[in-house]
């Protein structure tokens, strides 16, 4: 992260904390909470899907375990905040199990395996009504007693901030470089001594923990959850689409993706009611065809092209052909 980016990010988060001072409408705050929630989920997914290049389509499992952890553990008398953290622990354990099996696979096999695990989790939650309430759903305790939507908004911003700082730190660390090496070429990474299985697993564990916190916040805001809502394939897809739209493997991508996607979805929700996922589809297809590196990646490239040559250098900046650039940076198998 460059100096300028750091200032931009710090300014953005400071402004975000100030929003409830100006905005008092519950509706607007709820939408903004959603924007930050999905920014955080996107940042979490980005560690596995973006930096490590492992296309997970099963993040709804961690989201759902976080949500159900909070709901079910507080039902047996554990205080809500403790339940939240225990739920996160459960999500991390399930991520370890899922990761150990699915990281042995590559490409589409990995994606399918994550879907299968998430579906098993969903179906188990659906089919054990005595434990989870099944299809009828279960109640979730409120995490904040006072001015709840504002508190949710602030916690959304905090979670995004946490995920952002973690990502920024990982991006510059050895661990981050290992992840990117795996994305570029797993075999080569292995051959130069990167313990790819362990690195991938760690990225998933961090990702799952953040996702589970997000799930718990989401559940607590709605007070009521059903498996088909918090553990569906649609949820996994939404978590994955946000960062890919913004720019997978970039620090700002998931935040930008969430702002664009959630705002667009909200507008279309008012026009089309239930069919609002249509806009997701249209955006996704358009981004892949026209902006294959996501919004953030494309902006970064454009900026690079227009940047002046360093003073005193005779060489003019060499423009990179967009398709060449796309091939170079795009994800490989």
């Amino acid at each position: 992260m460059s100096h300028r980016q750091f200032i931009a990010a710090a300014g953005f988060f400071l402004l975000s904390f100030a929003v409830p001072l100006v905005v008092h409408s519950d509706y607007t705050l709820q939408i903004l909470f959603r924007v930050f929630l999905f920014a955080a989920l996107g940042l979490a997914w980005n560690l596995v899907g973006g930096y490590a290049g492992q296309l997970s389509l099963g993040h709804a499992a961690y989201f759902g375990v976080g949500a159900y952890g909070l709901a079910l553990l507080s039902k047996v008398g554990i205080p809500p905040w403790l339940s939240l953290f225990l739920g996160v622990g459960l999500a991390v354990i399930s991520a370890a199990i899922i990761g150990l099996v699915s990281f042995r696979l590559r490409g589409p096999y990995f994606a399918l395996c994550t879907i299968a695990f998430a579906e098993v989790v969903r179906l188990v939650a659906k089919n054990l009504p005595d434990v989870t309430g099944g299809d009828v759903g279960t109640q979730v305790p409120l995490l904040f007693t006072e001015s709840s939507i504002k508190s949710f908004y602030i916690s959304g911003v905090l979670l995004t901030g946490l995920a952002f700082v973690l990502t920024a730190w990982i991006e510059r660390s050895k661990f981050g470089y290992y992840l990117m090496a795996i994305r570029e070429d797993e075999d080569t990474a292995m051959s130069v001594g990167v313990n790819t299985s362990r690195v991938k697993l760690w990225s998933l564990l961090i990702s799952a923990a953040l996702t589970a916190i997000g799930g718990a916040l989401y559940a607590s805001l709605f007070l009521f959850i059903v498996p088909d809502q918090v553990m569906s394939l649609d949820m996994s897809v939404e978590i994955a689409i946000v960062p890919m739209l913004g720019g997978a493997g970039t620090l700002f991508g998931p935040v930008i993706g969430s702002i664009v996607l959630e705002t667009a979805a909200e507008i279309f929700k008012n026009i089309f009611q239930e069919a609002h996922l249509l806009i997701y589809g249209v955006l996704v297809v358009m981004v892949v065809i026209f902006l294959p590196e996501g919004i953030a990646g494309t902006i970064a490239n454009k900026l690079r092209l227009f940047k002046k040559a360093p003073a005193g250098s005779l060489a003019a900046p060499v423009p990179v052909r967009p398709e060449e650039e796309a091939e170079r940076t795009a994800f490989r198998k």
Partner: protein
Amino acid sequence: MESVVNWFYPLIQAILNGLLTGALYALIGMGMALIFGVMRIVNFTHGAFLMLGMYVSYVFFLKTGINPYLGFMVSGAILFVIGYAVYMGLLRRIPGQVDFMVILVTLGLALIITDGVQLVFGADYHQINLPLVARNFRLGTQIFVNAPWLLSFVIALVLAVALYLVVTHTMFGRAARAIAQNPYPSPLMGINVNRVQAISFGIGAAAAGVAGALLLPVFYLYPGVGSQFELKSFVMVVLGGMGSIQGAAIAGLVLGVVESLTSLYWGNEWALAVDFVIFILVLSLKPSGIFGSQRA
């Protein structure tokens, strides 16, 4: 004698029902396997294509009164055109043909189709009433065969065999298998890769559409109906060995029987969960598939 009747006939009945359902699964899985083999992508639009096939033959039935057992041809034809157009218009244009991106586009397209249908037809459940649905054939004293399932079984079986013959005995099939083996030298052998991939995608979509049409008389119709079959088609493709269409066909039949037996002994709600557990086991223990010959 009494005890034999108690466990034996339900078992036979369940296996029989499983095979009847399995033939439709086989058709769906073969479409997916053909697309996977030729393009090396997982097609997340498959369920949406199936749903679209159901709606096409539903509308066709409402307008003309021709039942889906003939209307499936219309579904198949329209879905072939849609699949071909999707490949030519979208998938071909993906920069670098990176599988990450292709998966994303098929996911996005599925959302567009599903929610587009929901915009047009609403989210309500529909069903068509055919007098045929209530008819049963009796085999012996205890075993029944439901007429619409038998009919769809026969049609699906014929089409599955036809698809197999097309892939094994025509120039198109030969080209498709060549691309599946190794896409890079294929153009040097004079194969128009884009065209073969477009036709394969069209045939895959048509297979899903036909299966949808055949499911229409015995199933409910709503915009999200495809996803459960799509998930099953992933299972079949993996079980059959990714890209092997005969493997996927056998896997379809097996899956039908496994689901039917699960329903019999544990209850219907666990059928899909058992599918996925098998799927995970196969993926982690023998990723090359059980019934196929292709390498993973």
